[in-house]
């Protein structure tokens, strides 16, 4: 343990005791100790001169940081709806039984902890789990049995079967972004040749819009940042791919990382930034080593560092920051807070990051896919890009497809592709509904399968989850409302409290205790959340309920109790403790339904 402590002290001094790195220090402590011990909090507090309670506030914000020791094997099952559809719950129960573990609590011998976590982005190869940060995909009974044995025998993770940790790219339909290759440095060279102004014009002509879903013009964003008065600027790549059902950034970072870094460097050169950050979600920690190696190769090739490709004064480098289990950090201003080592609470806007972002300096925050697209546009030109797609959505979009289909994986389509085309291609039959754009997205019924993926119609960062006729969509609603409850940052009243009330009402419906009064309540709470929440997460967290109440009312109405009103609790069951204490079980000790 002393060795670990000195490791952490070395890390602190090597990085100049940076407050911005607090979350990174905490992630290191979590990784080395399996938790963040009190004495390490005190160490950070002393060395960084940050109040201990503030540090604990950061620890308590992030789901992957713990104050109590976890097991030597810290196992977290991905609990997205697609994992559930693939039967993860039976596998969780099986492993808990086999290892005699209660979910969420370390076993008495501190050997193992079994818990669940939000979508880990392995939806096309689920069910999946994370063990000490490593992904195990394609779980089944055999794998669970083996994992149980490996844990009991304390086999180090490095000696587990390699096949466990294979995560495939699963690219089912490549189009221009995934198949038209560029040489490393080609985009940077074309920026050097053309100059920033010309390049930004090309970028504007290309019509590239942000791939995170909001669709803001990339050229406009980059120009605003470039023109903002400042002595420093920053480029941030948002790789906090947390939207349930999305995994295309994982594939891009696994097999196209050079293109992504190229796009970030291009951006740095175009807007006048010298520092870039890749904010990598904690679930993708297993990609970190390869990504660091790619960065080093690019430094060695003078594609990063000072005087890039010999261009005097073109300086840019990239650091990777890890997230730690907080969906909200995918929201750009929360991401910037997290990047500064703080709790991921979304900021007030205005000001927007392009004028006041990281360290209050003008900052570009773009999606992984946006940077990749920008790099290729710099090489192949605007026409290459805008000759495909629809009128207001040029180019292609990467879709992450999972759920009830025979060929889940990554599909790259020109914008304007219809849902029914996608369903045909991925081998979905007998489809009841498609969830587009993740938990906060839209639930599309069969009658609307003619709708198109585009900023004009269905805008999405790329999550497509397919549900066949056998599925109960209320399972999806339950999963999503629990997800939003868990992922709410807790800052504003409507999301913190309203989201919890909503989750409770969904549970009430599922338990068969709800009445039509409760459905009206859900609509009202949803309205309050939509209209008063502080950020986009809160404003859209009620969507899964509101969408399905509108498009799939049967999943609710068929479960309603046939009364005007029913309380949230069962009166007779509430008397059980009193009956036990008094030893009574006669008729007078019960309240029976009329």
């Amino acid at each position, binding site marked *: 343990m002393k060795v670990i402590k000195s490791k952490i002290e070395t890390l602190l001094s090597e990085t100049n005791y940076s407050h911005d790195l607090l979350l990174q220090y905490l992630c290191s402590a979590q990784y080395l100790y399996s938790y963040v011990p009190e004495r390490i909090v005190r160490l950070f507090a002393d060395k960084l001169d940050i109040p201990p309670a503030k540090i604990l506030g950061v620890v308590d914000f992030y789901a992957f940081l713990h104050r109590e020791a976890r097991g030597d094997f810290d196992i977290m099952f991905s609990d997205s709806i697609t994992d559930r559809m693939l039967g993860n719950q039976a596998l969780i129960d099986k492993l808990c039984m086999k290892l005699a573990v209660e979910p969420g609590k370390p076993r008495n011998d501190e050997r193992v902890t079994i818990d669940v976590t939000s979508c880990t982005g392995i939806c096309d190869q689920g069910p999946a789990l994370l063990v000490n940060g490593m992904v195990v995909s394609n779980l089944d009974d055999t794998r669970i049995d083996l994992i149980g044995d490996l844990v009991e025998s304390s086999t180090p993770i490095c000696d587990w079967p390699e096949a466990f940790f294979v995560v495939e790219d699963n690219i089912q339909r490549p189009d221009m972004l995934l198949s038209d290759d560029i040489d490393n440095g080609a985009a940077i060279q074309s920026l050097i040749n053309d100059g920033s102004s010309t390049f930004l014009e090309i970028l504007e002509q290309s019509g590239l819009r942000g791939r995170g879903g909001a669709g803001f013009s990339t050229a406009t964003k980059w120009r605003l940042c470039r023109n903002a008065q400042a002595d420093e600027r920053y480029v941030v790549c948002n790789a906090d791919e947390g939207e349930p059902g999305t995994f295309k950034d994982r594939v891009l970072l696994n097999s196209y990382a050079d293109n992504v870094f190229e796009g970030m460097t291009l951006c740095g050169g175009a807007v006048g930034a010298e520092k870039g950050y890749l904010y990598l979600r904690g679930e993708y920690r297993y990609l970190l080593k390869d990504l660091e190696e790619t960065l080093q190769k690019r430094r060695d090739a003078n594609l990063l560092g000072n005087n890039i490709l010999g261009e005097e004064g073109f300086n840019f480098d990239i650091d990777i920051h890890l997230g730690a289990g907080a969906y909200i950090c995918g929201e750009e201003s929360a991401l910037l807070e997290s990047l500064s080592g703080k709790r991921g609470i979304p900021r007030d806007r205005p000001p927007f990051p392009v004028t006041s972002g990281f360290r209050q300096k003008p900052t570009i925050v773009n999606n992984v896919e946006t940077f990749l697209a920008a790099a290729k546009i710099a090489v192949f030109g605007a026409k290459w890009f805008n000759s495909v797609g629809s009128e207001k959505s040029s180019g292609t979009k990467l879709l992450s497809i999972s759920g009830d289909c025979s060929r889940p994986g990554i599909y790259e389509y020109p914008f304007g592709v219809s849902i029914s085309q996608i369903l045909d291609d991925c081998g979905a039959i007998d489809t009841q509904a498609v969830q587009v754009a993740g938990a906060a997205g839209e639930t599309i019924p069969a009658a609307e399968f003619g709708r198109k993926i585009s900023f004009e119609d269905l805008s999405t960062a790329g999550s497509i989850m397919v549900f066949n006729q056998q599925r109960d969509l209320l399972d999806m609603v339950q999963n999503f409302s629990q997800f939003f409850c868990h992922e709410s940052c*807790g800052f*504003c009243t409507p999301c913190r409290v309203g989201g919890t009330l909503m989750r409770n009402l969904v549970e009430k419906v599922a338990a068969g205790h709800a009445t039509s009064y409760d459905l009206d309540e859900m609509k009202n709470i949803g309205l*309050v959340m939509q209209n008063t929440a502080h950020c986009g997460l809160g404003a859209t967290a009620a969507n899964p309920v509101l969408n399905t109440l509108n498009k799939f009312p049967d999943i609710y109405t068929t479960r309603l109790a046939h009364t005007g009103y029913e309380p949230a609790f069962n009166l007779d069951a509430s008397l059980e403790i009193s009956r036990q204490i008094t030893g009574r079980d006669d008729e007078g000790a019960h309240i029976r339904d009329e």
Partner: protein
Amino acid sequence: MISDKTFRIDGKKIPFQDGDTIMDAALRAGEYIPHLCHNPEFKPNGSCRVCVIETNGRHVSACNQPAIENMEVDNSSDAIMNLRRSLLQMLFVEGNHVCPACEKSGACQLQAVAYYTRMLSPHFTHFFPCRDVDATHPEIAIDFNRCILCKLCVRASRDVDKKNVFFISGRGINSRLVINSPSGKLGDSDVAVTDKAVAVCPVGAILPKHKGYEKPIGERMYDNKPISIVGDVAAKFSSKIYSKDVSTK
């Protein structure tokens, strides 16, 4: 410098200066916009959302949104009041707010704003959370049951007292006020009863000890006049903030 720019709240002209939020301008003009986490002495926080208004088809919080020339603000329609009432009800069911047993009753901003929004019941299912009371400090008690996470004590302790006694910890519905001290209790923190952080609490969460019910129920600031006239309980210059109405007191 007086600016001649104006916007309208419920049709009434409100002058404002560059850099003003909607709330700043409204407070100066004596136009009441209900609020809990806002206190004009501090930078806006924007977490309670009670100051929600509608402008140009959008709902925004008045405390942190810049005033824009000629904007039309809806501050009093039924739709806006319904949203605010629901937010109040959410705050009431989230904690354990037992007004008849609270020392702050009658001088509590949560209660006063609830009356203002015509809230008659908590409406939603109570959470009944298990929260502590911390009476370890000789002069100050803190009842976490009544905390509404407005962060005013956090801000005051950090920015005015320069002590950093209070922080928010946790996430989502588990968010909570915590104390920066070795034991996590108030008793061994640096807080003093004269601190701004103690005075600024708009509800009955942070209370000075040894002076209960100094002013009898019935004579307290909100007992006879609504908050729209009397102003904030913790406002330094409450009598000046809503100047037009207070003169009638």
